[in-house]
């Protein structure tokens, strides 16, 4: 573990400086294009990511990190097992949608409703991931395209459900009714940050322990490093694949539930798609070469870029979409240096 982290951070100092110089040159070039005042833009960036009255913006960053880190942990389990599950978005939507609908329809004591909704959301996420897994294992549909294509149907199913049968018509928006207020995740005292981040922290610890300390995690990782070897030593590869995908999907589903009960308090059409949580989670994992304990840090980093860009827009009228460009450029320059060989499928599978 430490040797891989070392490889990640060390390397040629000059090369890293050049990389950073490139990234900043591209950013400043883009800002120059619109003649934005650099000083105000940078100040806006930092206050947008970490500042605000009573740290309101920092809380927004943490709230966004919660979802990004959750999605990152979800795909990390798959990636480390050699499974190119890029359908996190669909699993996230399935989880958010189902948990919201369960909470709206199920009567009962709030805590029980919340717990059932979260469990149902996790089950829905797991089921959606398993669908892609079953298609790969039993039919031979490559997981990479199968999981990706499954993002689209669920997106439209969710859109239909909150546009027609479950729509809160009076609100005038395409969204479901509010989930009962008693089921909302409480805020930490004095700040606008829900306790969802604690749930993700638990997941983070659990995935690290799972990856390094359990036999199942070890087998899954082995399967990722060499599927042929795993098969040759008699590991139940099919079962490992499906179980790993189910875990990935369940985490994604949990993240969807956190977005519902902690942030939006209902299912709003597009709320899990537009901010690209799933894709940001994927690049957060790739940035740090899939090293589990670094994932929360890189998730926070990307969340800060997004909220910082919003701050930059407020302060210096730089379109906040620059955040996406920044992320892509960072991934191009950095991830191509660190996580190369880890992800490519062995040539026999291509």
């Amino acid at each position, binding site marked *: 573990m430490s040797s891989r982290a070392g490889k990640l951070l060390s390397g040629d100092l000059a090369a890293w400086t050049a990389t950073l110089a490139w990234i900043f040159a591209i950013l400043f070039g*883009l800002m120059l*294009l*619109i003649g934005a005042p650099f000083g105000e833009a940078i100040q806006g960036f930092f206050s947008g990511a970490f500042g605000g009255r009573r740290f309101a913006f920092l809380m927004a960053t943490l709230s966004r990190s919660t979802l990004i880190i959750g999605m990152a942990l979800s795909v990390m389990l798959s990636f480390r097992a050699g499974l*190119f599950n*890029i359908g996190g978005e669909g699993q996230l939507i399935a989880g958010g949608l189902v948990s919201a609908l369960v909470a709206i329809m199920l009567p009962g004591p709030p805590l029980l409703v919340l717990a059932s909704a979260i469990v149902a959301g996790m089950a829905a996420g797991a089921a959606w991931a398993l669908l892609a897994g079953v*298609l790969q294992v039993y*039919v*031979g*549909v*490559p997981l*990479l*395209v*199968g999981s*990706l*294509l*499954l993002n*689209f*149907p669920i*997106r*439209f*199913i969710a*859109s*239909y459900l909150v*546009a*027609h049968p479950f729509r809160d018509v009076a609100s005038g928006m395409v969204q479901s009714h509010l989930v009962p207020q008693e089921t909302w995740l409480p805020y930490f005292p004095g700040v606008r940050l829900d306790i969802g981040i604690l749930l993700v922290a638990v997941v983070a610890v659990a995935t690290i322990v799972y990856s390094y300390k359990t036999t199942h995690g070890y087998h899954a990782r082995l399967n990722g490093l060499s599927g042929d070897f795993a098969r040759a030593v008699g590991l139940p590869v099919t079962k490992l694949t499906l179980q790993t995908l189910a875990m990935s999907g369940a985490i994604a589903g949990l993240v969807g539930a956190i977005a519902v009960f902690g942030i939006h308090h209902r299912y709003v059409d597009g709320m899990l798609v537009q901010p*690209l949580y799933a*894709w940001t989670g*994927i*690049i957060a994992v*790739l940035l740090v070469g899939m090293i589990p304990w670094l994932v929360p840090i890189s998730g926070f980093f990307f969340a800060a870029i997004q909220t910082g860009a919003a701050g930059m827009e407020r302060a210096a009228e730089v*379109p906040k*979409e*620059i*955040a*996406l*460009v*920044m*992320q*892509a*450029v960072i*991934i*191009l*320059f950095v*991830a*191509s*240096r660190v*996580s*190369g*060989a*880890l*992800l*490519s499928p062995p040539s026999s599978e*291509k």
Partner: protein
Amino acid sequence: MLDLLLDPAFLASVPRFLTPLLLAALGGAICERAGVFNIGLEGMILTGAFAAVVGAYFAGSPYVGALSAALAGLAMGVVFAEFNLRRGGDAIVVSIAINLLAAGLTTYLLRVIFDVTGTFNSPDIAGFSAVHMPGLAGIPVLGPLLDGQSPLFYLSLILVALAHVFFARHRLGLRIRAAGENPAALKAGGVNPDKVRLLALMMCGALCGLAGAQLSIANVNLFVENMSAGRGWIAIVAVLLTRGRPWPLFFITLLFGVVDSLSFRVQGLGMPQQFTDMMPYLATLAVLTAISWWYRKSRT
């Protein structure tokens, strides 16, 4: 059902769906044959769609629009090559970054150049108008499909035939196949496989750019954020299923195009829009599943 399939309005709408898929899939096929695992088609299409609108708006000509789309796509291909081939980044990682880069750059430049978010719509975007050729309209049944389409549709049909000859006989086409199948032999022959792959990526980018141009200045005259809407992924499925062979590629994208336009038609019959929206993806999944199943069965 047969009535629906022979309906001239339906037939005339098939190329709208077929052309972008076919152009992008041909691009993907070149990468596939060259041994580059490019799943960044989506981003290249989106880049092309945006550049086409920019070119058509400022030059007032759809041909300039298409040219700028091809060039912008080509530039994305060069970026891909730089990070994948020269810097050794993983193809999947680079692809994901290319897709994000395209989404980011187009929305950012949309605001910088046109000062709008979401959609840019202006009467000054010079889109392609339908090309009418004498004789085509008179062909029974297929007349409405073949006549009165955008020039890019005819180009895409020509390109299928050209691609077939290209891979079978042309020197670069053969080198591209060698780069995919046996790069060591290519190297031994004194040709750098990565240079061949760079050319493949440039061609792929240009074709995807044209696919984007069909979306933004032929099917409609506007740019919408993320208007590629998964077509790059559907094109990748077509490439994977046919291993990048041009004629099978044509028929499978034709199948997807027919299904897409059918679902567009049934929207008029009272189906909720969300269901018709998901049709293309379900159809792709269904075909993918059926063919994968058949492959697996025929192998064992």
